[in-house]
């Protein structure tokens, strides 16, 4: 059996070259998020607030750099017939999706690292209470948003239309992230609903991992919700993802 990360990275490296050559995508992915560091800087001295600000930035990265960016990339590669051609080769469908998504994920992770380093320097960030939980939130969130991007691309005919078709997910997830309105300040049912959207549980896991708090089992519910989103996203991709343009 052939396989392994090598052949996935062959595709990922080509995508990275394409990202570096696409000025608009590069700007959105790399430059645009940097001013957000100021937001984190304004969080004050309370570790819980700092963790909330930083995990909120992570959520924005997942939405902008990973989700939005990948919807446009999946649509572009589909319309260029690149996905159809890749499917004639040895890569599995999952490898094609992962390889295509790899550079966006890489850029997202690098930005998270930059934000952590920057915040630590600016405001003496607390050490994460539960690092595995934090990483689980990041990995789970990234997985879900790659899958949602692939699913959204199925409903997006052109790269330009991505601005429109990504709005529902973007709007709901910005609300769900708790960055603008912390869910616990909302009336019970609304807060609960937001906690069920994909961004809510990812940020909650990251926040719990960073700042702690809640009981020992507080992470179970968001972890379960996030896993459910990953399954739903996977099923949506299987059902709706398009490998070639509509004729």
């Amino acid at each position, binding site marked *: 059996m*052939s396989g392994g990360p*090598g*052949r996935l*990275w*062959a*595709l990922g*490296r*080509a995508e990275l*070259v*394409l990202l570096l*050559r*696409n000025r608009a995508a590069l700007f959105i992915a790399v430059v645009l998020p940097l001013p957000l560091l100021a937001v984190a800087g304004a969080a004050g001295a309370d570790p819980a607030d700092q963790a909330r600000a930083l995990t909120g930035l992570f959520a924005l990265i997942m939405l902008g750099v990973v989700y939005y960016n990948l919807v446009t990339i999946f649509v572009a*590669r589909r319309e*260029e*017939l*690149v*996905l*159809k*051609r*890749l*499917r*004639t*080769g*040895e*890569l*599995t469908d999952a*490898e094609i999706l992962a390889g295509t998504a790899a550079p966006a994920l890489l850029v997202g992770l690098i930005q998270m690292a930059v934000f952590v380093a920057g915040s630590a320097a600016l405001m003496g960030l607390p050490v994460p209470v539960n690092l595995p939980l934090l990483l689980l939130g990041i990995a789970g969130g990234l997985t879900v948003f790659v899958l949602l991007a692939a699913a959204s691309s199925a409903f997006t005919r052109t790269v330009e239309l991505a601005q429109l078709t990504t709005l529902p997910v973007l709007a709901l997830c910005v609300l769900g992230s708790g960055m603008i309105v912390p869910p616990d300040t909302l009336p019970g049912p609304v807060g609960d609903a937001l906690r069920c959207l994909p961004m809510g549980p990812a940020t909650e896991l990251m926040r719990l991992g960073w700042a702690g708090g809640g009981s020992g089992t507080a992470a179970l519910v968001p972890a379960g919700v996030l896993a459910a989103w990953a399954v739903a996203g996977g099923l949506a991709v299987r059902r709706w993802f398009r490998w070639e343009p509509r004729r």
Partner: protein
Amino acid sequence: MTAVIEVEELSRRYGEFVAVRDVSFTVERGELFALLGTNGAGKTSALELVEGLQRPSGGRVRVLGHDPYAGRKQVRPMLGMMLQTGGFPPDLTVVETVRMWAGTLSRPRPVAEALTLAGLDHRGSVRVRQLSGGERRRLDLAVAVAGRPQVLVLDEPTTGLDPQSRHDTWRLLRGLLHEGVTVLLSTHYLEEAGELADRLAIMHRGVIVATGSVAEVVAAYPARITFTLPAGVDGADLPVAATVTDGRAVVRTDALQPSLAALLDWAGRRGIELGGLDARAASLEEAFLEIAGERA
């Protein structure tokens, strides 16, 4: 001889429309089999079933003994393909494209070797978007052969190529056939099929209407003699049966030489000049036009 590609009563439907209907053929190891047909005849649909890109609505395909759709994992490392249109990111260079592809293969050729085979070695640093149509086709070919495939399935591999590049492609394919590679290709260049194909099938409206070697397919069709009937001569006076339309006589015959001799002898004795005289043995083109025409 062993059948590398076996296709039995294959069908593919899109809703009401039947793109491929009960198509059967086999391709032996080291053989080149050509699918001919008018546009929309179902060639691409049939090839996509052999490639395992689509699941047949009926019938059975085997490539090297495997179902190419269900056994994608087993078949793909042995299979190289060219789709009808490329599918490479416009902003990668030629070398970057082939390197990317080679990186996904289990037994890749060196990038330079693949480019040389396809005659693209001098264009390595050019972006795909700047390539001519013919060069894109050759990039596609470089990718198709990059994994040292045992089987090649090529959908119109030389469309858009200049005559020189077309001959280069033929030379490459002959070399691969010599090494035992099996090739299934579609083309609408009859000359290409005549030049390369050990056997061929002509498709029309989703069905194979003629199949065999070039000689076998052609044998079913008559030779033709055409000329302009001089003024004052009636078609009924001719020594061979002819149909006359707008003053142009067409003789269809299974015995070209005797028919032509009789006609020339007749004209010679009467001092008649047969304007625009043309006599040709049945060719693939005749057979093809006959099929496309009579069934249109």
